[in-house]
């Protein structure tokens, strides 16, 4: 009952209610340093703290090409994108896109698929390249190719006359080692998103997401949960991880990244990521089976679940408060839901009953043609994206030393990010564009306080 009330208050933009529910969670930490995304909840870790630290080491570990003496960290490739989790999630934060066509993608990747669905309703992998372009290969195994990005700027004029330039990315595949990509290829460039607070998101009950979808409908917002294939339970489930909410659990998100990004097998992905056409890849030895042991996976899972979220700052600043009111008034909070509450979470009871401030509903929303990747993923169509959490967004520049936002990093700052919103977010975007300079500044101050 309380959960429903909190959700309703948040959705209706009842600021008094939001303020009341912003009691400090034990998973929120007053930290604005460059380590703010990397704080483990040591109280919640209790006797498992050393496991959590082991998970942290694994997250930062550069993996080794097999065969190797260090069998615990061997298994990179045969084809892969990067050597470590931290490559795409630096300091547990956001990656960034290349700045020009000469730069390689270092914290970004490109998903691939063909029109159609796999046996479980997910994207249909390309028969030769699979579901992700792995740009690198271990010695003796060619990487799959490379992608470069170039930007074309175009002007946007706001109602008060301010001219802003947005930049549209254009991607170019090159050096494709395994033959051309089909004309019907669907691809989706993705910058590595932050990884803190994922335990809290996992502990939000499915029922809350369903209620949010229903209440959104009443407000004219068409958010809906993605229904994906839960590979552990072998049944459909609501997705909440990944940029299209295309993964059901954090364990599956981790193992998917290990195999997809680094070529490291696990109990959930026991086969190397080589397609039938990739002969050298298939002939390369694995380090062991699986390369990521269950104990290592558990440690990584624990670490990510225990990562805390930086608490809001400057909440008493009148300009920040004004910006917060504007955020709600122009409709941002309809999808970027300020307050959620976790349910009972038996895998890590400390996550139960927590009030969190993700500024996300974890639902899919139509974001319009301009942001569309035209690559369906389970029930998410090519225009839909999961509302990304905004918590910690005000620290990105300090921690990750850039301010590139959106799924492909095309927005160079928060203003550009808002202006790219389309689809069902178009009315909010239009109201944003019509704000006075003072209100716009206040809104940005609010976002920077997160």
């Amino acid at each position, binding site marked *: 009952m309380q959960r429903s009330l909190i959700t309703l208050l948040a959705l209706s933009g009842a600021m008094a209610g939001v303020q009341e529910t912003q009691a400090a969670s034990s998973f929120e930490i007053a*930290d604005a*340093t*460059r*380590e703010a995304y990397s704080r483990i909840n*040591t109280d919640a870790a209790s006797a498992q703290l*050393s496991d959590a*630290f082991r998970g*942290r*080491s694994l997250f*930062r570990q*550069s*993996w*080794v*090409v097999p065969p*190797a*003496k*260090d069998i615990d960290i061997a298994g*990179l490739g045969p084809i892969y994108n990067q*050597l*470590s989790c*931290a*490559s795409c999630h*630096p*300091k547990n934060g956001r990656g960034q896109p290349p700045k020009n066509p*000469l*730069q*390689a993608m*270092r914290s970004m990747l490109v998903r691939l698929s063909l029109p159609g669905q796999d046996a479980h309703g997910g994207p249909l992998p390309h028969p030769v390249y699979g579901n992700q372009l792995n740009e*690198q290969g271990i*010695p003796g195994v060619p990487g799959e190719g*490379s992608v*470069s990005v170039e930007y074309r700027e175009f002007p946007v004029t706001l109602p008060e006359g301010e001219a802003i330039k947005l930049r549209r*990315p*254009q*991607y*170019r*595949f*090159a*050096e*494709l080692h395994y*033959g*051309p*990509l089909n*004309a*019907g*290829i*669907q*691809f989706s*460039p993705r910058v590595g998103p932050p990884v803190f607070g994922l335990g809290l998101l996992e502990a939000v009950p499915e029922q809350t997401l369903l209620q949010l979808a229903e209440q959104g409908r009443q407000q004219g917002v068409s958010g809906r949960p993605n229904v994906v294939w839960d590979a552990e339970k072998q049944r459909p489930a609501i997705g909440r991880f990944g940029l299209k909410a295309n993964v059901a659990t954090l364990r599956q998100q981790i193992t998917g990244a290990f195999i997809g990004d680094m070529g490291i097998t696990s109990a959930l992905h026991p086969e190397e990521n080589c397609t039938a056409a990739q002969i050298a890849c298939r002939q390369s030895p694995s380090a062991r089976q699986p390369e990521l042991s269950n104990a290592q996976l558990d440690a990584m899972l624990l670490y990510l679940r225990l990562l805390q979220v930086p608490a809001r700052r400057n909440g008493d600043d009148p300009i920040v408060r004004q910006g917060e009111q504007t955020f709600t008034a122009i409709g941002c909070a309809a999808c970027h839901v300020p307050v959620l509450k976790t349910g009972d979470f038996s895998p890590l009871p400390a996550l139960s009953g927590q009030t969190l401030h993700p500024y996300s509903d974890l639902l899919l929303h139509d974001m319009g*043609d301009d942001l*569309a*990747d*035209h690559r*369906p993923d389970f029930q998410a*169509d*090519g*225009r839909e994206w999961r509302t990304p959490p905004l918590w910690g967004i005000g620290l990105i520049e300090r921690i990750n030393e850039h301010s590139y936002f959106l799924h492909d990093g095309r927005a160079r700052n928060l203003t550009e990010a808002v202006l790219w919103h389309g689809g069902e977010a178009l009315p909010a975007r239009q109201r944003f564009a019509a704000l006075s300079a003072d209100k716009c500044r206040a809104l940005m101050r609010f976002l920077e306080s997160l």
Partner: protein
Amino acid sequence: MKNLPLLFGLTVALNAYQAAAKEQLTLLTAYPEDVVSRYEIAFEHAYPDIDLAVLWRMPHDALPYLRQPQQGGVDVYWSAALPNFIALKQQGAWQKLGIDRQGLADHIGAMPLSDPDGFFCATEMAGYGFTLNPAYLQQHGLPQPKTWQDLADARYQGHLAQPVPSKVGFAPMMIDSVLQQYGWEQGWAILAGIVANARPVDSGATFITDIIASGERGIGPGIDFFTASAIANGAALQFVYPEPAAYSSAQIAITAASRHAEAARRFAAFVLSEAGQKLLFHPDIRKLPVRPSMYAHKPDDYYDPFAASSRHPVVYDPGRTLSRLALNNALFDRLFTDHHQRLQSLWQKLRALEAHADAGKAERLATIRGLLTAVPIDAEEAQSASLQQTFAVRAADAKAEADAQALEQAWHREIDSRYSEAESLLKQQES
């Protein structure tokens, strides 16, 4: 179907485009992502025609990799692994670096920063010292330690976290620096006193910083950059370099088998250039440049090893005693790690008695102290090349392993006997 018209809106070419051919350069390193990624980006910016591929291996795993045919395809080896560079030089694994060394230091005090034959050179340094938690020290009324000898003082009992050198990568040379600086017997005696004050730490170096930052302990002997980076990222810590300070250096070399020697040379020169050395100042790296002029532009409060060495010249030369590191580690474990709780109890009792000893007792207590600080082999034996080799190769040589175990068993008996005698003598003193 609604997606089709825009399907190719984001791309200009899927298969026809052939990128300008880049020269592929393969780098083998053990640097973490924070370091590697910044050098990759900066080098790519400086040399967009060279594609840097990175392989990662810890030093013990890199050595066999570089001994493969064609040296595993590696062009450049860049790592804080001096023993590997020396061993591979002896096997003809390197070609001359052949880069301009103008403005680079050839040594810091007694420590060389370049191979005299020009096959490899240092690219950065890291210093050994003490991570401190100032709030913890204040809370416990402890003064800031300034020397290794200070750490062995009774007042620090229970306040230290000491890395176990056989388990923590940077610790063998740190331990060896104490032995070189203070001499074999006194060095081991100081280490015994330090261990008596410490909880052992047998996992990675970041754990030392965690332990000290959390306030579980107040002082952690360690290597500077973990702590310096933590401080630069907001941790309320401090790092103290003893005087004279000791350093470990990372080296760079070009493989003899490299087919991309000129590109390799460009990378090595870039790492040593002002642009490359400046990256070391980044808050997530915090290593010490080997180009002295860089310190004119260092961030506030950044340590300058060249200035420090002009005041207290560096005496530690790691290359002089590298061959004994494995022997040191074995001795450390047999002396201390195997008897940790027993030792702490013995030292506690000894120190309690020493605090109130009269002249008559002092001599007997000195005997007990001698039993707790003695080492089974003397300095001359420790210089034995065959003994050092036995411990260095034990992991890969069954006979050496058997010999090493036999020696360790003999040491164990001797050490156990000494500690038992100390226990007995302490009981007599207490009664």
